């Protein structure tokens, strides 16, 4: 959302979740038939058990017949265990696994739009550089930066950038890949 002239910033951002919520975070990789309705079937199973989907990335597989989803959720692991089994039961699901930090790499990307006049621009650029980010759009009064990495890193970058005026952030959500030769 563009900032208005009065400099009153309307932001679509919500605050980061408190640390306690982050503890129940889980990352699932789901390999599915690339067909209409599959996402709805999976979403129904989560919503029925009161499980919120925190992030969701869907993309076509190399074999176009299939799609890959990475689903980030938080909640009781016991309930999740049952949901995973139910997801696996769906006819359109080839497999659904939960991944942990140790057996996989989990990455995401964020775009951050900042209000920055010339005065503080250099400072912002330093922060971005520290996180290995990039400036991808620049105007007299604003900039968009892109940062990739694991969730903690992206969170930390957003926290530091919050010292400036963030207009909005857009995160891709996590993508996961199993480490080593193992298929995801």
């Amino acid at each position, binding site marked *: 959302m563009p900032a208005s002239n009065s400099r009153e910033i309307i932001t679509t951002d919500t605050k980061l979740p408190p640390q306690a919520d982050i503890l129940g975070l889980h990352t699932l990789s789901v390999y599915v038939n690339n067909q209409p*309705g599959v996402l709805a079937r999976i979403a129904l199973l989560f919503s029925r058990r009161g499980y919120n989907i925190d992030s969701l990335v869907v993309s076509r597989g190399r074999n176009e017949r299939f799609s890959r989803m990475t689903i980030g959720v938080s909640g009781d692991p016991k309930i999740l265990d*049952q949901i995973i*089994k139910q997801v696996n039961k769906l*006819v359109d699901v080839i497999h659904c696994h939960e991944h942990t930090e140790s057996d996989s790499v989990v990455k995401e990307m964020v775009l951050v739009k900042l209000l920055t006049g010339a005065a503080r621009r250099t400072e912002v650029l330093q922060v971005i550089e520290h996180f290995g980010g990039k400036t991808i759009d620049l105007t007299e009064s604003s900039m968009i930066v892109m940062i990739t990495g694991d969730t903690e890193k992206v969170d930390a970058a957003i926290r530091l950038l919050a010292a400036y005026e963030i207009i909005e952030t857009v995160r891709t959500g996590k993508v996961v890949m199993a480490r080593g030769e193992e298929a995801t």
Partner: protein
Amino acid sequence: MFTQNEPMDGAQALIKTLDQLGIEYIFGYSGGAALPIFDALETVKSKMKFILVRHEQGATHMADGYARATGKPAVVLVTSGPGAGNTLTGIMTAQMDSVPMIILTGQQVTWMLGKDAFQEADIFGITMPVVKHNYLVRNTNDLPRIAREAFHIATTGRPGPVLIDIPKNISQSPFTGDLDAEIDLPGYTIDEAYDIDDADVKAAAALINAAERPVILAGHGVMISRAEPELMEMATRLNAPVTSTLLGKGVFPETHALSLGMLGMHGTAYANKAMVECDLILNVGSRFDDRIIGKAERFGRNAKIVHIDIDASEFNKMIQVDAKICGDAKTAMRALIPHLKPLPSAPWLDHLEGYKRKFPLSYKKQGGLRMQQVIDELFEVTEGKAIITTDVGQHQMWAAQFYKNDEPWKWISSGGAGTMGFGFPAAIGAQCAHPDAVVVAIVGDGGYQMTMCELATAVINKLPVIVLVLNNHYLGMVRQWQELFFDNRESGVDLEGNPDFAKIAEAYGALGLTVKRPADVRKVLERALENRTGPTVINAECIKTENVFPMIPAGAALEDMLIEPPKEKMEKPIGST
């Protein structure tokens, strides 16, 4: 009629495929979006019989009753929008009870989808949570493959309903594909479930062999996998008593000395007491439904729990188990039995015999006609051999208690969904499957009126179904809860103004009988059994305010079972409905 080269449309290809799959019955109701499919029923020569119902819900319960009497799926064929919508309850009922069914719904033409076109409903989206799988067909040439997949999915693993939504342009376009197209289901690898894990079997056997007070809890899964011989072998080898769920009635002969009858909310006192006092619960093919476990935290507290199920998502869902075997009940028991040894359970069986003597199922014979008596006499005159379907309510629970089943596939009742209106159409389906069998629908005056219009279907098809209306002029089961838990404040349960069910039967061209006096029951039942030319409806005027016991209030622990009417005021039940 067709050779591979003759032109045909999608609907004709579909009907040919269903016929090839061995479908015997199509229960349905026509309408615009299904016209091409209905036309194909006329133009394609097939062995399938079409039964025109009077309401689409009836069609689903008929297909359900057919499936529960045979293990085979039937087809439901309806039009789009309201036609499809009317099937929802029946689809949900089948899904809850793992019943195979194939539902074909007509649909608006493809290019109108999502535009609120006439009689368009997103039945694909609406039914997603209540089917095993569903399809919205987008290519005419996919029809045979999809029909084959639907059949495969519906009937294998844990069975269930599969819906195929077919836009009208898809069914009436020329078919140019392969009639024998093979199924292609990379995400549905059912064979895995039959690979019994050896370590799981050994772990389960170790727990079982250490028991002194075992109980086998047998569910619908035993019936679906036709594992009654294995169950009998296991029970007699272990010397273990067997209790069954509502849907498992008949998988172990209820007149056998080792049988404890049905357990659960209105199960026998001895079955429920056995569940509380046992040191081992061996569950074969039941999903630990809330109606049988009561308060989950207190269920099986003193017992090791072993669970055999084909559906891995059932393990630890309701009850944390000590050992599990994932697989088909028959295969799993076959793998398990060689590891089992006779248990020293004689004192335990004696103890349970004591409960059987002390707390038998019984009812008063004086003071008017009771549902229990009617069912008991039905059991006697039919020698326990009839196919019984029930509706939902008090009569259902008494039927479960007093109509003992010694054989599987003869007890047909809506368990998981508890669907009123189920009993009568289910009986029509069962009678279609077994034209020569005695089929009796035991129904309440409430539920019967939900699908009573199917009398026309039964009459026209000359089906000798007996409808036993146990008429208490109340929504009895709800009234019972209001009496026990809501200070007897009756609200929305009085069915005063019921029609004369015998006269209604006659108006439809069926035989209508009425019985009011206990002494006349036998005679009336015999009269009904003689009539093989069409349906008979018996209106049995019963005591209005009798209550079903034993009863475990919803959400209470099994040990808090009420064996007789409580003396003090009861708390409102906190548990599920």
